């Protein structure tokens, strides 16, 4: 019986050690999940890191949009913290998300702001939440398959539990959809994220031992599933199949992760939990993304700074109002100015992330050079719940595919999906259209 484990276990380990390049092995390819099968993880796939960062409730646009256009533009009040990174910044004006408008009241509108952001698709009501594959996941199918984690999904707040207006909470709780019916849960606990990246345990030795244990557990479960199958209804067998697919995917990730953490990258101490202080929490989530990109445990991440309808208070912004409450500024200039302080505060934390990327060497340049990051919201004015024009900034040079230092004023009402499909171009994942796009942007 003991043989049962060690035999399976050994054979696979031996294979891995002997093989060198895991993905070159046909046998292992057949063990990869379905999602991998159609991906061409060929040599030469882009090493550009992609991040999408989201803040809810829009911004005080009059204090967000730069007053002048083109190269060497003047940074606006809200975007001023990014000025130090001018050469890596593009501000895009006049983008809109038409499908974020929809039937229903304010709550549904908030849900749609979030769900449309990366999907360019319409959130449907009904038993099975149905949206569309998000742009980050389209990229992950191509450039995420040769990394241990295809992508990383992060949030700061707890997931919302009930979301109103017949729309599933899935629309509000994540930015990333792997398929049109598979929302990917976002993680807000830094400790859990650390484990996703580096494994469970306080020391490298402990992490190695537990990685081995989890692999043998998953091996054993894989073995068992074929015996369970026989007496089950066909639909249940299907569901068990997808379970098995995901079991194999996790095995694949664990194996790859083991090889990924090399001696020249110092893995910091494991976080002890969710920090009380929201600023510390946001910074820690940014730190983890830097680590994940640096180690190439993943090249793709999505990050939600706060949930739609969040009542968060940011002491560091100097404003004491709740985030969502203040977004309903009733067009009072005073309230709009205070709301802008929250926007600027968030941008300041984004600058913290860019600082870290800029200070991390990668290839011949910096990690920021080799990154493409979209920072923005699915809402424009939080008071009127519109989605035009959206506050959007791009950071990073996408490995040379993108210039910087520009304020690009697009034609009014340019579909946001045109930007999403263009970002895919920049990541080397070219396709004709995405979501409700009507064309590509020349940026």
């Amino acid at each position, binding site marked *: 019986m*003991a043989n*049962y*484990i060690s035999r399976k276990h050994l054979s696979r380990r031996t294979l891995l050690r002997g093989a060198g390049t895991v993905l070159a092995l046909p046998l292992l390819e057949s063990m990869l999940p379905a999602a991998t099968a159609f991906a061409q993880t060929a040599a030469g796939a882009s090493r550009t890191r992609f991040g999408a960062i989201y803040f809810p409730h829009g911004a005080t646009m009059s204090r967000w949009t730069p007053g002048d256009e083109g190269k060497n533009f003047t940074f606006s009040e809200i975007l001023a913290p990014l000025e130090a990174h001018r050469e890596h910044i593009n501000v895009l004006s006049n983008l809109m998300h038409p499908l974020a408008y*929809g*039937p*229903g*009241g*304010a709550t549904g509108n908030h849900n749609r702001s979030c769900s449309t952001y990366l999907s360019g698709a319409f959130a449907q009501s009904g*038993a*099975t*939440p149905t949206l569309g594959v998000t742009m980050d996941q389209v990229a992950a199918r191509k450039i995420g398959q040769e990394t241990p984690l295809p992508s990383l999904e992060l949030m700061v707040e707890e997931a919302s*539990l*009930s*979301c*109103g207006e017949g729309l*599933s*909470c899935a629309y509000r*709780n994540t930015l990333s959809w792997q398929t049109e019916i*598979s*929302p990917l*849960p976002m993680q807000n606990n830094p*400790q859990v994220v650390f*484990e*996703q990246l580096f494994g*469970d345990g*306080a020391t490298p030795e402990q992490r190695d031992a*537990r990685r081995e*244990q*989890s692999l043998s*557990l998953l091996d054993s*479960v894989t073995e*068992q599933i074929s015996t369970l199958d026989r*007496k*089950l*209804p*066909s*639909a249940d*067998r*299907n*569901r*068990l199949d*997808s379970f098995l697919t*995901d*079991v194999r*995917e*996790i095995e694949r*990730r664990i194996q790859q992760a083991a090889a990924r953490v090399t001696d020249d990258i110092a893995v910091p101490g494991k976080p*002890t*939990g*969710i920090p*009380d202080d929201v600023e510390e929490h946001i910074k820690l989530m940014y730190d983890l993304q830097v680590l994940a990109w640096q180690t190439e445990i993943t090249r793709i991440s999505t990050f939600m700074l706060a949930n739609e*309808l969040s*009542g968060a*208070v940011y002491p560091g912004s100097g404003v004491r109002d709740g985030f*969502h*409450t203040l977004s*309903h500024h009733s*067009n009072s200039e005073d309230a709009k100015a205070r709301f802008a302080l929250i926007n600027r505060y968030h941008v300041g934390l984004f600058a913290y992330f860019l600082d870290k990327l800029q200070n991390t060497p990668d290839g011949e340049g910096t990690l920021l050079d080799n990154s493409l990051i979209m920072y923005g919201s699915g809402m424009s*004015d939080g008071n*009127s719940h519109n989605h035009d024009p959206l506050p959007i900034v791009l950071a990073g040079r996408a490995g040379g595919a993108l210039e910087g230092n520009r304020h690009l004023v697009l034609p009014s009402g340019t579909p946001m999906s045109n930007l999403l499909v263009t970002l895919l171009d920049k990541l080397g994942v070219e396709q004709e259209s995405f979501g409700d796009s009507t064309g590509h942007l020349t940026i």
Partner: protein
Amino acid sequence: MLRRVLLFKPSPLALALALVSAGAGQTVFAQSPEFIQEYCVKCHNLDDYSGGLDLEGLDFAHAEANADVWEKVIRKVKAGMMPPAGQERPERATMDAFAVQLEQQIDSHADLHPAAPALHRLNRNEYANAIRDIFGFDIDAAALLPQDDASEGFDNIASGLAISPALIQGYTSAAMKVSRWVVGDMTATESSKSWNAPADLAQDQHIEGMPLGTRGGLKVTHNFPLDAEYDFSIRAGGGFNRNTNIKTIVMLDGEELTVPDLRSFRLPITAGEHELVVAVMDMKRPAGVNDIYSVYNVAGGVNTVEIIGPFNPTGPGQTASRERIFSCYPQSNDEERRCAEQIAVNIATQAFRAPVTLAELEPVMAFYEQGRQQGDFETGVQQALSRILLDPRFLFRFEEEPADVAPGEAYRISDLELATRLSFFLWSTMPDSELLNVASQNKLSDAGVLREQVLRMLADPKAQALVDNFAGQWLYLRALNDVTPEDSDFDENLRQAFIEETELLFGNVIAEDRPVTELLTADYTFLNERLAEHYGIDGVRGSHFRKVAYPADNPRRGLLGHGSILTVTSTASRTSPVIRGSWILGNLLSAPVPDPPPGVETNLDGDGSVVLTSSVRERLEQHRSDPSCGSCHSVIDPVGFSLENFDAIGAWRVKDGDSDVDTSGVLVDGTPVASADDLRTALMTRSELFVSTFTEKLLTYALGRAVEYHDMPTVRSVMHAAEGSDHSFTALVMGIVQSPQFTQRIKSDPNAAVAVNTAQ
């Protein structure tokens, strides 16, 4: 009484009497094709296609052949929505008779359709409950597993419980962690856990459950992993002895701690759960001094308790989980394997919710051996447990198909499978040993035994899961945690009181086995001082909740007067008659109104560029004057208007701003209403709509799948069977657990192509 007869047991005579004079002297019978021609097909035909419905050419005499369509018709007619206002409408009694006849036709030919839900996996909450039941160990599932998304209004719907790589990773890491925790993990390194007071928790008063004489504070039950030392760090606003009149007290398991500095200290603690209380005593000021304690981060009150550890562990200790696991302990090496087998069988029988043999546990014992070789006996047991917790038989609720039933045929599920369905329905967790025993002996399918078990289970504290999970989701109590009313009277204490009140009312209906309509009509409620003040009810003192009879002529009564529902159906800044109206129609009457058509302006608050001087009612009336809006809003708005005496956080009002509140309106069936009381009376006049909705929701929750048109005969028969008890909660539960939907499933066709619609 006549109406009741018409609705539930229409005699042929009653039907024959249901004549109606239609237009120019001609008389048609409610059940005749002419009737449908006259009142339905004029709009619902292929040309006009009103509401996307074509009734022309459907065979009314064989309604069962198009039950999917006719069930929609029944719903609209019973709700009084069809024929619509403005069209010629027969007497309500005639329309009722028409609906009843359709129901009878469908029910008498009902092909009971025990369609099974997709393969259920445990949701996060059920997972945590199962761990609690097996090991006597509480986990924070939110820290271990990804969140589950709700659909059909509930988070236990099989098709909505997605499987994702993150879930598998969560299950794997949870299996390893939980197994280490329950055995006692001597390799554990320190981790921190912070317990925070909600930001707007007023701490000026005594909080229920806290030591007498204190105000505010935090009470946490913390699970300490090992016999070891732990660091405590406590942050409280103003009470750390800087002022001799204010004293912060810290109590561990009821004993006040005396340490040099309460802000930060280290203590040796035994493994297992301990209760830590931190609260403030003010020696000088009486309770209720808002300016000091109302918001903790300003001056007073308790902010955070952080526990870090373990340090210098000395052993796994004597914990409840170790007692449950180590039913034997080897005295020598020879006894180890046998004891490990005993432990594995014992735990797996519970986890898999069925008796297991040693032979089936071969993979589990392989992990015991692996762990034993790497460490000691306990390491072996821990690894065996990790394998049990990752076993698909634990994570999924399998129901096997018998070989001797033909595809497409219905069959009774096994008693053990029934026991699992029952316990996940009533308890949100696995069966206990008694239920498992009864089921193992194949006695559960006996109606008397089933009844006995259901009664026992409803009386068990674990039935609180029905309140937390069923009522909590159906009545949007969970959503209340997400709302952020702008009213300065609203704070965390009021939020918690709202939730508590509604939970207690629902719990009371279960515990006292009251008719479910009492949820609408209760002339009593559950209040503490804070909530009673909010409602303007005198004579309730203190933080604890108690049953209070409403004073005569009090406008509340039942759910429609609960702050929870009134708040969750308002926007942050004002009431919303539209949200309230559609919430009641959809959630209490199963008569959901469609979403607004695309492109329609639904924002009544403007873009903020102009100061709005009109009332919400005026703006809505303007909105209704547009015909494309009016057809639905004339149905929705009057329901909401009747509750306008309750503001956006459920407090009573007679003025909205400067203008008088106008509560008047006419319901879709022509009933005039001008108050919450009128609305309640109207709902109770046709209480079968509410009961039917309740039954549908409960059936959805019980089955973990959407209730479809082919389930409606069962919904009606469950209601019918419960009439004798005026639809008491238990009677409805009994009807559901005995229904074919709950006790049977249909053999699948192994050759059929399977539609991949199971959330992955």
